[in-house]
Structures are given as C-alpha cells and as structure tokens.
C-alpha cells in the first residue's frame, strides 16, 4: 500500500549548507493497516507526511502508493493523485471558515477531477453524527464537531491512505479518545490504511503497530540514546 525506500530530504540552511531532515531506508504500510508513527516535536513528522502526500518533493528515494512512485510524478499528476487517494486530518483541523460543514466535505471532493458526490458527503457527516450541523460554519461548531467534519472530509474520496498529523493535539483529554475511536472506526469501515503521527503515548498505546520516527529516520538519534 505504502512503501518508502531510501527516502532522503534536506532543507538548505541560511548559510547554504544542507540540513538533513529525513533519511528513511525502508518503511512499509499495508492496505487497511493502522500504524502510529511516534516522535517528539521537530523530528520531521510533518515533513514526512508532506513528502508522502506529495506536497513536498524528496531529494532521493521512492515513495510508492498503490504501486505508483509519487516522487516521480509530475506535480499536476501528484496533486490529482493526492486528491483521489490520500486523505488528510490535520492537527488544527483546518476547516475552511467560509464554508459550511457540508461544503467543507464537498471541498474534499472538488479537486479529484470527478463530479462531487453530495449524497456521500451527507452520509459521511451523518456517520460522524453531524447530520444536524451540516449547514453550520466551523465557527459555529465545537472543537469536537470540527474534528469530526475534518475526518469526514478526509474520507470524502474513499482514499486508500489517511494521514493524520497529531489529530488529538488540540483536543481536550475528554475528547481525545472520541477522536481516536472515530478515526479508527471510520478507517476500518472504509477500509482505509491510516498513518497517524503523534507524540502522545496515550494515543500510540492503543495501536498494535507503533513505529518510532527516531528509529525509522536515520537522521535522528536513536530513541534509546541519552538525548531522549
């Protein structure tokens, strides 16, 4: 489903020197699998997700999703591929404030190049328990409701892979479990593979497979090192 091979990514420092961020020899995620990638802040989690989604290009290596190396796709094709096959759930939900909950979900379908499916958008919102809040804009929704809309939007195009970037970071402890349950349940129902990035042990402890980015990413020191 998702395969990373010899992926390297670095940024340029102000003095022109390369600053290595990612160096991943091998990482694999099977179809429908739910995996947590755990790492502390600033260890390249978001960069990795951006590389997997094709928002950021890698310097070297292969990122294969559904048998296509997206690192080698032209940008336009990569965008379309992302729209069709990858769902995103962000730390800050990132709902667009000008659109209603229903329109935010529809927006997730807009860039696939195919007709938007309003009935699916309604059904997804219904499944996350927001059928009565479809016409409300994000400002009128609670934090928990916003996150549920974000999940519905991420699943709008029946993606193969859902990337969740610290989805519980902005949710109070009382609602964290709801978010995790929602994500896991939705992914199981839709048969979507999920790569969830977090630094929170109480989240990662609930998943069967937990990978430490410090272990996967050779740029970083080992999690067993004294620095951690």
């Amino acid at each position: 489903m998702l395969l990373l091979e010899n992926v390297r990514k670095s940024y340029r420092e102000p003095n022109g020197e390369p600053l290595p961020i990612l160096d991943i020899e091998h990482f694999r995620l099977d179809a429908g699998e739910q995996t947590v990638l755990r790492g502390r802040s600033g260890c390249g989690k978001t960069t990795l997700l951006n590389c997997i989604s094709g928002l950021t290009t890698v310097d070297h290596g292969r990122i294969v999703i559904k048998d296509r190396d997206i690192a080698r796709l032209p940008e336009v094709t990569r965008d379309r591929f992302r729209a069709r096959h990858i769902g995103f759930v962000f730390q800050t939900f990132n709902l667009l404030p000008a659109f209603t909950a229903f329109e935010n979900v529809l927006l997730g379908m807009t860039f696939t190049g195919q007709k938007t499916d309003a009935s699916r958008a309604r059904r997804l919102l219904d499944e996350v328990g927001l059928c009565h809040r479809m016409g409300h804009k994000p400002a009128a929704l609670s934090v928990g409701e916003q996150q549920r809309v974000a999940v519905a939007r991420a699943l709008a195009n029946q993606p193969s892979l859902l990337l969740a970037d610290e989805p519980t970071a902005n949710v109070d402890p009382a609602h964290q479990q709801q978010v995790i349950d929602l994500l896991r349940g939705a992914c199981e129902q839709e048969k979507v593979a999920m790569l969830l990035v977090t630094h929170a042990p109480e989240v990662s402890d609930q998943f069967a497979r937990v990978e430490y980015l410090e272990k996967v990413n050779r740029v970083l020191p080992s999690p067993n090192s004294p620095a951690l």
Partner: protein
Amino acid sequence: MTFWKIAWRNMQQRALASSLTGFSMALGVALMILVIVIHEVTVQQFSSDAQGYHLIVGGSKGGDVQLVMNTVFHIGNPLYPIPYSYYKEFVDGNYAPFTKVAIPYCIGDSFHANGWRFRVVATTPDLFDKISYGANDDGSDKQYRFQSGRNIQTDHFFEAVVGSVAAKKSGLKVGDTFQPTHGMSAAGNKHVEFEIVGVLSPTGTANDRAVFVNIEGFYLLDGHALPAENRDATQAQQQEPDPIDPNRGRLPLPEQQREVTSILVLCNNDLGMMSLDQAINKGKDRTAIAVKPGYLVQDMLDKVIGPVRLVLLVLTILIVIVAGISILVSIYNSMSERSHDIAVMRALGASRTAVMGIILAESILLSLLGGLVGVLLGHACLAIASPYVMAHAGITLRFWQFNWYESLLIPGLVVFASLVGFLPALTAYRTDVGRSLGAGR
C-alpha cells in the same frame, strides 16, 4: 463544487471588503455608462435637429456655420435675409423641379417669459406637416405631433405653435395669446398678439425650445415689411377690419415686400440635392448659399463633442482602472491571511493552477458583479434624470437606452479582472504549502 462557488464563498467571508471594492467598480462603470449613453443621446438629438430635409439655403453673408446654428439650433444672431423671390424659385421657379418641399424661415423676434428667452420662428404649416425629424427605432421617420391643439393654418395669420420645452417653461398653452418682442432683447417693442393653437410633443430637437408663428402674420408685424414700391400694395393692407376675421382685417403682405431668413429644402432625391447644391453654391447668383446640415452638424460633433467625449471616456476608464486596482489591492492584501486556506486546498488535492483559478474567479466575480451593478446604477441615474433633462433640454433619456459599446463592457471587464487578479493569483500559485499549513490558524 465549482471554482466560482469557492470564489463566491471567499467573497462572502470578506463581505465588507468585497462589497466596497465591488461598489467602487460599480461607480466607475456607472460613470462610463452615463458618458457613453449621454453622448450617444446628445449626438442623436443633434443629428435629429438637422434631419428631415436636405439643404438649408440662406444669405451668403455669415457663412455656413452661422446659417446652421441659426436655423437648426436657434442660436446666434439672425443672418441677412434673402429676397422672397429667391424662395419662390423653389416653389415655382428654376429650382422647383428639384424641390419636394421648401419651407421659409423668418427669424429675428423673440418671446420672453419667466426669465427665459425663446426664439420666435415664423414659418408655414408645412414645417410640421411635410418635414420629419430624426428616425424611430424601426428606421421610420419621426413626424411632428401635437400634445395638444393643432398645427397653424396658412390663412389664420396670427396663430402660433409652441415647442414642448418652451410651453413648459413659459406656461403657454392652447388658447393663450402672447406678444413677440421685436428683436432678441426683452426691451424690444412688443408686437401684436398671436394665439397659441398647438403645443408640440417633445422632439428632443432645438424646436422644443422655440415658438413658431404663421409667417403671414409675421410679415404683417411692425418693421417686418420692406418699403412698398407702389401705393396699391400699401392700400391693400388697410381694409376695414371684420370683428370675427381671425386675420383682423389684414391682407397678406405683397411678395415684393417680403424677405426670408433661410429656407429648409427637402429635395426630390439625392440627385436633386446635388443639382441644387451646385446651382446655388457654384452659380453666378451669389445671393445665397446652400448648406447640407447633416454633414455640417456631423462635422461639428466630430470636432467639438468628439474630443470632449474622448476626454470623459478616458477619465471614466481611469476610474474603472483605479477600481480594478482596488480589487487587486484588496485581494492581494488578503493573500497572507488566506495562504493557510490555500495550503489546505492544496493538501486536499488542488493544483497550483486550481488555486490560481479560484483567485482569478474571485477577481472576475467582483469585477463582473460590480460592473453589472454599475450598468444598472448608470441606467437608473438616466431614468432618474430623465424628467429633469426632458423638461430643460427636451432630450429623452430612458432607463433601457443602451449603447452597443455597453456590450463590450462585460467581456472587457472579464479581461480586465483577469489582469488585475493575476498578481494575487500568482501569489496563490506560489504559496508554500508546508510553511502555510504549519502556520496554522
């Protein structure tokens, strides 16, 4: 969801800024509409003034411009008159074969009322019966009509017809009498009374602002007759008056004592017009000149009103450009606050060209909506000003008075909006997704 809807939602999100920038575009477009339509109407009205006949024949002293200004627009001092016999050439003389209608004009008197001065034009009923003015929308000639009363009658010497604007401003109505003043000054001697028998419907021509009297009565007024060459002619005027005689016992002035200021000539055809033009302007007799008023008026419009219109159009185009730049500034300034939204859309699969298209769509929508409101606003102004303009200038302005230039506005605005939207769209295109997503809200 279409890009248009996304753009519309973005506009709604910034409702106040969007409304203000759209309104500035509306004002610019409204001004442009006003300039275009008012110029068009003015040209039409000016042209109408000089339509319905082929030639104006008048005294050779003074020149063609003065002749046209005097005869068509009732402006300026009267020209030196030409003999009545010259007019008769068009009726039953050498020029008659080429002439369909010849209408004599005698100008020189005025009528003063309520602080306004109106030119008194002495003519024959043929002016309103046999001559048209301008053209209707279907191309047919516009005929003079009376909103009340009727035309003057040849054998009722002291009848008069008043133009619509003159009637409104002076208060004259059918059945009233008025006394023309000799000359153009209010201090001139008052002539005998004429009775108003008709009020013209508005024509949008200078005739709306004039009073027309029967030329036969005009000739009988003090100071309008040439000295008599024999006693019989003088005696003929001095019969005992009959109390019910509309002509007050007066007989027509002998032709040898008459003069005319100018003659409106409707020719049989274009060949007749050219023949008369040649005969009058190139012949040995230099008593009069013949002017083609249509050409001269068009020339005046091109040389006088044309440049004014150009200046006004350039100014309004500048206003629209400023409005367009305000759209650019408004959208551009909002780019930093919406870079996060753009990054989210990119994460959802929107390509760079898609987000660029959304920003362009917003610019086009703002310009188009502003432009459409401007078109409506401009025409609403025309409709509101219509009664005032009609009352004071006799020019008809209508809400639906469209000019074909307006049809260029919409495609023009789309192109213009695309240009002004390009810079913010380019900013959207270049948005750093990773940084913007990380910035959060």
